[in-house]
């Protein structure tokens, strides 16, 4: 880094000498001077005295700047968390900033070396997680995991988290991001519609194909998807079935970009199932030309029976779905007998990454803020204000639940520790979007078959594995 900084400085100085860059050159030079050095430590961060009530040693008077992605969850929950923080540190001045344009607003601050103390990096304009991790811009949150929880000094924070939360935020062995919202990815259906028709939710692929035939005969499409921007939702069906059949290693091989990972038997079988569903017309006609919002609308209007999406779906369709729709979740089926994971297993992926920038002024204050978010009071506030599940054990106990949230909680309870996930969509977002999503769109629109899909995706994955410009992660 130092040598590269010099290259750049010399270059800019020459330009400045040429009179081209007098003012801006100085700007980037100072940015360069304050920047520098990979992170992941936060060793130079200000720290106060550690006490029982302040286990992280937060400097009590140091201000705290919190930047929140103000999307579907709003920012009221964050204001509640900030109030809790003020209660512990009454002299710390809290700065609250809510925005949707995370990347554009935060970019100059990361470059300039004056990032906020807590950043909720989410939404379509989020900063790519893998990039932030590779650039060493995130503080290692291990001290947070090892700190005692707010509610019980004998229980560490790490033991209050739901399964998968730590794994999801870990890059190269360091826990860098707290993905606060616990999302599950089941299949969704309208309970009254299924009861009215006497349809049973399938647990195996054969059952599902049979049910699809029955549903199709009634004039309803078995499945819908939003092909123009969310074809990848359907991947929860195909890859989900594959992982349940073959076990979590199936996903691990794919994430690690191992040779022939996409040619694993169960993966191919999952893709072939999609091909068959396409051939038999089980997807709502025209789905390839729909946005996810349009496809979901058609689905809640009863034009299709099943839809796959994350657990935010009910919230997203609030006010659009009929009041008696009773959105209900079920885990995706298994491919056949002898599956490695039980049929109850479900794909979960914690989302909404909260991070503490390595160059934040108040790194330990940022961690303390996250610790407060994970307290019973903090988690309950979030669940109440957003009708969503935070990644903390028991956070929604006793809370009033909507039908969708209720059934999602039931699915998660039944799954227990049988949850699985894949990382390829967060580690290699561009691959996921420009390769997987595009090819899946082709497959679902009938432009290619399963073999074509597997061949292309495997070739692109091999190319990615060799691409020196993309930072790699393994698990």
């Amino acid at each position, binding site marked *: 880094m130092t040598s590269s900084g010099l290259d750049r400085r010399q270059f800019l100085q020459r330009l400045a000498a040429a009179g081209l860059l007098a003012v801006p050159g100085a700007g980037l030079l100072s940015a360069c001077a304050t920047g520098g050095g990979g992170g992941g430590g936060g060793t130079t961060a200000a720290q106060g005295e550690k006490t029982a009530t302040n286990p992280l040693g937060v400097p009590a008077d140091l201000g705290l700047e919190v930047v929140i992605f103000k*999307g579907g969850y709003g920012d009221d929950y964050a204001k509640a968390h900030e109030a809790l923080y003020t209660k512990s540190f009454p002299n710390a001045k809290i700065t609250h900033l809510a*925005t*949707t344009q995370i990347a554009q*607003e935060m970019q100059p601050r990361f470059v300039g070396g004056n990032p906020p103390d807590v950043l909720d990096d989410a939404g379509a304009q989020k900063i790519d997680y893998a990039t932030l991790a590779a650039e060493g811009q995130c503080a290692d949150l291990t001290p947070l995991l090892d700190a005692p929880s707010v509610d019980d000094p004998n229980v560490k924070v790490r033991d209050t988290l739901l399964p998968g939360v730590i794994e999801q935020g870990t890059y190269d062995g360091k826990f860098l991001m707290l993905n606060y919202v616990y999302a599950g990815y089941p299949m969704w259906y309208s309970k009254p519609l299924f009861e009215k028709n006497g349809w049973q939710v399938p647990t195996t692929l054969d059952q599902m194909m049979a049910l699809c035939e029955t549903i199709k005969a009634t004039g309803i499409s078995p499945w819908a998807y939003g092909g123009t921007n969310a074809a990848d939702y359907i991947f929860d069906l195909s890859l989900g079935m594959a992982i349940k059949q073959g076990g979590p290693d199936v996903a691990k091989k794919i994430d690690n970009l191992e040779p022939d990972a996409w040619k694993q038997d169960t993966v191919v079988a999952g893709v072939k199932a999609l091909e068959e569903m396409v051939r038999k017309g089980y997807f709502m006609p025209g789905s390839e030309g729909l946005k996810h919002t349009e496809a979901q609308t058609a689905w809640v209007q009863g034009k299709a029976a099943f839809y796959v999406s994350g657990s*935010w779906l009910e919230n997203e369709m609030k006010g*659009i779905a009929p009041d008696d729709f009773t959105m209900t979740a079920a885990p995706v089926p298994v491919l056949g007998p002898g599956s490695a994971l039980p049929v109850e297993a479900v794909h979960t992926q914690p989302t909404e990454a909260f991070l503490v920038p390595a160059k934040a002024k108040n790194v330990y204050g940022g961690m303390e803020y996250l610790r407060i978010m994970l307290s019973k009071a903090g988690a309950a506030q979030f669940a109440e204000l957003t009708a969503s599940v935070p990644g903390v054990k028991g956070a929604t106990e006793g809370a009033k639940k909507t039908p969708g949230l209720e059934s999602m909680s039931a699915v998660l309870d039944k799954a227990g520790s049988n949850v699985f996930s894949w990382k390829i969509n967060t580690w290699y977002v561009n691959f996921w979007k420009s390769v997987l999503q595009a090819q899946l769109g082709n497959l679902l629109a009938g432009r290619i078959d399963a073999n074509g899909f597997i061949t292309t995706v495997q070739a692109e994955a091999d190319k990615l594995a060799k691409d020196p410009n993309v930072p790699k992660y393994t698990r």
Partner: protein
Amino acid sequence: MNQTDAGVIETRERASTLPTTTERSGNAEGPTAGERTLNLFSTGFLVVWALISLVPLVWAVLTAFKTDREIFTSPWGLPGEWRFDNFVRAWTNAEIGKYFINSTIVVVASVVLVMLFGAMVAYVLARYEFPGRNIIYYAFVGGMTFPIFLALVPLFFIVQNLGMIDTYYGLILVYTAYALPFTVFFLTSFFRTLPGALAEAAMLDGCSHAGAFFRIMLPLAKPGLISVAIFNFLGLWNQFLLPLAIMKSTDYKVLSQGLTLLASDTGYRSDWSALFAGLVIALLPVVVVYAAFQRKIQDGLSVGALK
């Protein structure tokens, strides 16, 4: 003006070599069958185009009164009832009132400044020969081709070094600078079409270069100036990338930034009805401004300086 006649004759001679599809028809007779068909087709096309220009606007206004369910399940229907609370929600949630004032201050000041600067540069580029003229011209044209988001980070540091973050004048200067290429580009070609003889005559009468510009050419260029000013107004009113780099504090944000707060992403619920209401609130003044200035253009043109 003898020059006029000469020009026309020259034009016509050159143009007569162009293929023409309609042969001349005697001007004393009534319209021929062919012309009638053409008339019918033309009028039909005008009506159709008027419809497809008007309907989306009407649709947007109607949609702003709907519930989210109506927007999605019957996008082409009328709202079940006129829900003004959508507008209230947009107004309060997105703090549109405050942002509206900020936008107005910044955009009006920028348009005035860019029109003055743009006209000065364009006039010089169009009317004077001097070394480096083409370089300057293409530097401005090239400025229109680069995506703004590549400039955001360097721009932020420039503005920060000048101490202009979260200031009206910072954004005004930036808006002016970024509107210059378009303004210069259009006004240069406009000044080229104006009769230069007038300015020359004025200078023979003792006007200075600047005097000829401000007293003769600027009034002559009024129609062009008004059009470009309107386009600049619209462009800057809807600009949302530049303020991102400059307006950080909630007190100084502009309308387009406020509206993005209402729009949301995959996986989150958007308040669609409030979003449409907010967009309509933002759009209506623009329509009014245009409708008002449409007359100004007519008036500006009817001054008759060009006859």
